């Protein structure tokens, strides 16, 4: 990558290694770039290192006794090593944590307002920001007075995204927004994410297991496994890549099949070799 390109990347991760509790190696070698205004998808199965990568960017890692032991992370021209989550939010980078993590005892509206904590806004400015968010998430407006703990999973995901957007971020890190949600809800949430990216110009790094929907909405994708980047390319090229189709989308040249079939076949061919 040339130097002129560097200035256009809002986030650059170079060869990071992440270790938890000084012994558990979660990420061994991940490098990725997020160009300004793009949606980049980070794909892979459980335990591949997606969440860990996101948390090393938002510096939430320290609170889980994790540490970036090698490599560098540069956000908006600044190294993030010595910063804390609150600094990152002030610099315009907010992470939406896995499992949504709404404040269950607060109302929907209080949850969203809490996202503006780091900004110095007057009551009326907060009102305006809130209305702006309700325009993206009309469903939340209907439920504004409900306790967040009693809303549905999809609504909680929306609350978490709206809450993060209240900080007026330049960049959002989304950790598995599709987790545990019905397909049409996932579709709805991704549409809103795309809309936020278009209209608010927020850059997005997205960790997902749902490869299909992530690639359909992203500009670029990285596939990681056991803490390493295995494959990367534009979202379109990945969607058409045979290996990606077979292993992550469950489609092979012989038609649709599920992951279990793929496993069976590899096992069979192994058995035959023996």
């Amino acid at each position, binding site marked *: 990558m040339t130097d002129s390109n560097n200035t256009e990347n809002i986030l650059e991760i170079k060869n990071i290694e992440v270790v938890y509790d000084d012994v558990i190696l979660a990420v061994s070698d991940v490098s990725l770039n997020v160009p300004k205004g793009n949606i980049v998808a980070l794909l892979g199965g459980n335990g591949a290192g997606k969440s860990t990568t996101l948390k090393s960017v938002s510096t939430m890692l320290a*609170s889980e006794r994790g540490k970036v032991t090698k490599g560098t992370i540069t956000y908006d021209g600044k190294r993030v090593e010595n910063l804390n989550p609150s600094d990152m939010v002030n610099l315009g980078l*907010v992470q939406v944590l896995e499992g949504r*993590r709404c404040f*269950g005892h*607060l109302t929907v509206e209080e949850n969203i307002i*809490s996202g503006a904590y780091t900004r110095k806004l007057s009551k009326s400015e907060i009102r305006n920001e809130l209305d702006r968010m309700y325009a993206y998430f009309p469903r939340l407006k209907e439920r504004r007075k409900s306790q967040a703990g009693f809303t549905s999973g999809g609504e909680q995901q929306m609350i978490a995204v709206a*809450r993060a957007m209240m900080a007026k971020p330049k960049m959002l890190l989304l950790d598995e927004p599709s987790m545990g949600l019905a397909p049409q809800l996932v579709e709805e949430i991704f549409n809103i994410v795309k809309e936020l990216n278009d209209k608010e110009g927020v850059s997005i790094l997205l960790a997902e297991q749902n490869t299909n929907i992530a690639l359909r909405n992203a500009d670029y994708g990285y596939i990681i496994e056991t803490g390493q980047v295995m494959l990367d390319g534009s979202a379109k090229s990945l969607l058409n890549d045979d290996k990606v189709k077979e292993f992550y989308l469950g489609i092979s040249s012989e038609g649709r099949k599920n992951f279990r079939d793929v496993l069976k076949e590899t096992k069979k061919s192994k058995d035959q070799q023996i």
Partner: protein
Amino acid sequence: MGSEILFFFEVVVGGLLAGTMYSLVALGFVLIYKASATFNFAQGAMVFFAVLSFVGFMELGLPFFIAFLVTIGLMVLVGLSTERLVLRPLMNQSEDTLLMATIGLGYVLEGLAQAAWGVEVRRLDLGIPDFPIMLIADTIGIFISALDLTAGAVAAFMVISLAVLFTQTKIGLGLRAVADDPGAASSIGIPLKHIMLLVWSAAGVVALVAGCLWGARAGVQFALVDLALKALPVLIIGGFSSIPGAIVGGLIIGSTEKVLEVYIGPFFGGAIEGWAPYVLAVFFLLKRPEGLFGEKIIRRV
């Protein structure tokens, strides 16, 4: 009105007002419980530390108000060092670890207070007599102590200010967010250490106020630490995380223990107000473990 009924009212009102003093101690516990989900065993020691320092500063010749302000400053300092030396290193440890740490903190504070100011019992004169107010006694026929009445007013004031702080201010919102999910709160940039510092300082000020009222009644002495444990049944009844709960719990404990003491006590040979609150607490634990105002734990399945 019959004198029997009047007497009953007198007992109840006296109990309610004494109950507000329990509420004040319980408030300190609730503040810390709300922000870090830990029962702060050091709260009793903080009450003792605060009021002993206050009396100590007055003995040094500081006027009442200056001594009060200096003690508030000292309690903020205690909050600051607790955050820096105890809470921050223990961040992300389990709640049990924190609980044990507060027990240790309690002993440190007790020791420090006695090392600095000595062990003898002091008298604290707030200028408010612990005698019935004659005006009320003459007009309605009920004997109410001026100190009890003051305690009630002070408790009401503290509760209203804390309620406003929690529900109407940005800091209050941050505080409730941290109480709910510290990880998520820090992900949206709420600085945990500021919130902790604030909560511990506020708990310190509440401890000072409670200590002054208790000290004026019972003398400034080591027994104040144990007195604070009376807040435990108050919290069980009201709910650990609720400010209104602390108040209502205190009122319930205060009035029932006095009524029981006066009417049933003689059958047990008296002194049942020492344990009656705990019996009531056990009853609540069986029937309504989250307390009257406690937040039910929300869990989606």
